[in-house]
């Protein structure tokens, strides 16, 4: 069952970047279905497993996190979570994982179908939940699990032993995937794939950086939609071209004085964490009502891997929001806040992501001290709508707004 890729009928005009990006994601899913129908093995991968390996070997790979986000955004998240809970999975487990278990077990799901896996690719740079998540599905389907274990970075840079360890696993992953693909790893092709991946990452980061302009030529929430390509298809040339087109559109918007944020930009905030996919409109509306544009996002640019050689590639893949030390995490975020000129921060305490939420109280304290901006947190969930309360969120947005307003009017002194 392949999804039909929608072809926009714009024969002579260039497609808007958002359409190009949407088509790329649709095509990635369609190609996975086509491969399955041809009898080729299809993998499921964590979002930050080195995508370059499967791409070089011509193996099609799907991304359960992206699928779960899409299912949640289309309001299928609760149904799938409840299915997994009925199977025996605790509701404390990440909702992406619960949705994935349900889908792997055969739960009906029209929101975002993808082929069942023939192999699993797990890299735990994003979190440790994926280790057991992927192990479970590997056992469920009796299929190989290829693991790249990323040690947590207690220092600013990954140490040499870690890099050697990661490289050894990377090389071993290649050997295992050669057997699955039935072909040898082509070094020349790998170079080409890495070049595409870097070009995509640079273009994506460039597009994200346009939030630095005042007023911003984009609503930061747009990046939550566009980032799917950096997860599902970052090694493709068309992905780089699409992000370059996106950056060019933003460049033009700056020149024209236009923006996809069509409201007054009274305040600018950083949104910390994965968004609540089932409640994107509920997240956006109170911000829009108060003229608060999100001009800094942590989640989106986290998928920009840039490297010049294998050593740098291993280091790049060892850095994810949840695998770097607190100090690095604070520096990243404070850097974005300063560059993107925010005057407040909204923190999503994500019930589905204990590591990401666990360090936030200490980061909040440092943000207040170092940046002197209002910081407010709300409880929610990336994919389980039962953990989000709209009324409570609205109160917190209004509180943040009132803090930013009084600071703007010069009425606020230090603690």
């Amino acid at each position, binding site marked *: 069952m392949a999804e039909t890729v929608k072809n926009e009928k714009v024969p002579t005009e260039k497609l808007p970047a958002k359409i190009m990006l949407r088509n790329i994601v649709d095509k990635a899913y369609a190609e996975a279905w086509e491969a399955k129908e041809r009898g080729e093995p299809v993998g499921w991968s964590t979002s930050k497993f080195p995508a370059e390996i499967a791409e070089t070997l011509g193996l099609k790979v799907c991304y359960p996190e992206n699928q779960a986000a899409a299912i949640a955004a289309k309001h299928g998240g609760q149904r799938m979570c409840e299915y997994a809970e009925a199977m025996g999975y605790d509701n404390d487990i990440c909702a992406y994982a619960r949705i994935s278990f349900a889908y792997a077990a055969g739960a009906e799901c029209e929101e975002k179908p993808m082929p069942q896996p023939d192999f699993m690719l797990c890299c735990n740079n994003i979190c440790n939940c994926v280790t057991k998540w992927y192990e479970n599905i590997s056992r469920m389907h009796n299929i190989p699990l290829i693991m790249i274990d990323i040690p947590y970075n207690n220092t600013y840079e990954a140490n040499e032993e870690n890099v050697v360890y990661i490289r050894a696993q990377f090389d071993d992953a290649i050997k295992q995937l050669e057997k699955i693909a039935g072909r040898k790893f082509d070094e020349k092709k790998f170079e080409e794939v890495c070049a595409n991946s870097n070009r995509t990452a640079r273009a994506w980061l460039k597009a994200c950086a346009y939030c630095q302009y005042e007023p911003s030529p984009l609503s930061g929430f747009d990046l939550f939609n566009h980032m799917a390509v950096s997860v599902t298809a970052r090694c493709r040339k068309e992905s780089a071209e699409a992000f370059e087109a996106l950056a060019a559109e933003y460049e033009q918007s700056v020149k024209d004085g236009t923006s996809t944020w069509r409201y007054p930009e009274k305040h600018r905030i950083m949104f910390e964490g994965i968004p609540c996919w089932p409640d994107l409109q509920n997240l956006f509306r109170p911000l829009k009502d108060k003229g608060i544009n999100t001009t800094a996002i942590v989640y989106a640019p986290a998928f920009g891997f840039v490297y010049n050689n294998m050593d740098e590639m291993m280091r790049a893949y060892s850095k994810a929001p949840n695998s770097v030390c607190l100090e690095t995490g604070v520096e990243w975020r404070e850097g974005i806040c300063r560059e993107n000129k925010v005057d407040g921060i909204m923190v999503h305490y994500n019930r589905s992501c204990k590591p990401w939420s666990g360090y936030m109280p200490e980061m909040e304290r440092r943000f207040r001290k170092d940046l002197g901006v*209002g910081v*407010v947190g709300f409880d929610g969930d990336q994919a389980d709508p039962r953990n989000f309360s709209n009324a*409570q969120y609205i109160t917190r947005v209004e509180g943040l707004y009132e803090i930013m307003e009084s600071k703007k009017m010069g009425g606020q002194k230090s603690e």
Partner: protein
Amino acid sequence: MSDIFTMGIDIGSTASKCIIMKNGDEIAAKSLVDVGAGTSGPERAIQAVLAGAKLEMKDVAHVLSTGYGRHSMAEADSQMSELSCHARGAYFQFPNVRTIIDIGGQDAKVLRLDEDGMLINFVMNDKCAAGTGRFLDVMARVLEVRIDDLESLSEESTKDVTISSTCTVFAESEVISQLSRNTDKRDIIRGIHRSVASRAGALAKRIGLLDDVIMTGGVARNRGVLKALEEELGHKIYTSDLAQYNGALGAALFAYQKSQL
């Protein structure tokens, strides 16, 4: 020059509170109805406060609503979150306030103010009503005592009893277990007060305490909870008879500010 009357209405989850200020510095009347958002409470509170001030709605220069039901009030000229309104109301009563602990019917929050009474930071309970007025309602019912008697009964306690602070329903089960073991109600009640203090205290510690610390909200009427909170936090905590009206007071003050624009 004629007097300027402004109205603040705090439409909470369990009660509707209304205050009319005269010229932004004197309380002309106040009212409280024991039902909140989505009920006849707000309308009845408005009628009562107007009667108390001997005014009609047309005499009021500006109406500002706050609280959970703030967006549903057609008569309001503007709305503001209960966060800023509580800050404003507390600062009016206690000019040295820097930390406010507000425990209402279903909400608990801690606010940090700067030296001019401006809101700098806040933290609130999420989803769970353990440690709020609802918690005390449930316990009073199980113990078959009146809410208003919880304070005096706890003063007669002689023994420590620990009651969970994690969940109202679990805590209710614990209270029932204690009763079936013939534990003295007065000791249970003091344990309940300490449980509420533990929840609110955890929020306060996240913000950090800076004197003066003020307690507001309906639960502040129970001096047993206030005393437990002082013990939990090791700080003197002030309150007033206007504790439950604090949000409405702040709303009326902001209404006055807006009427001058």
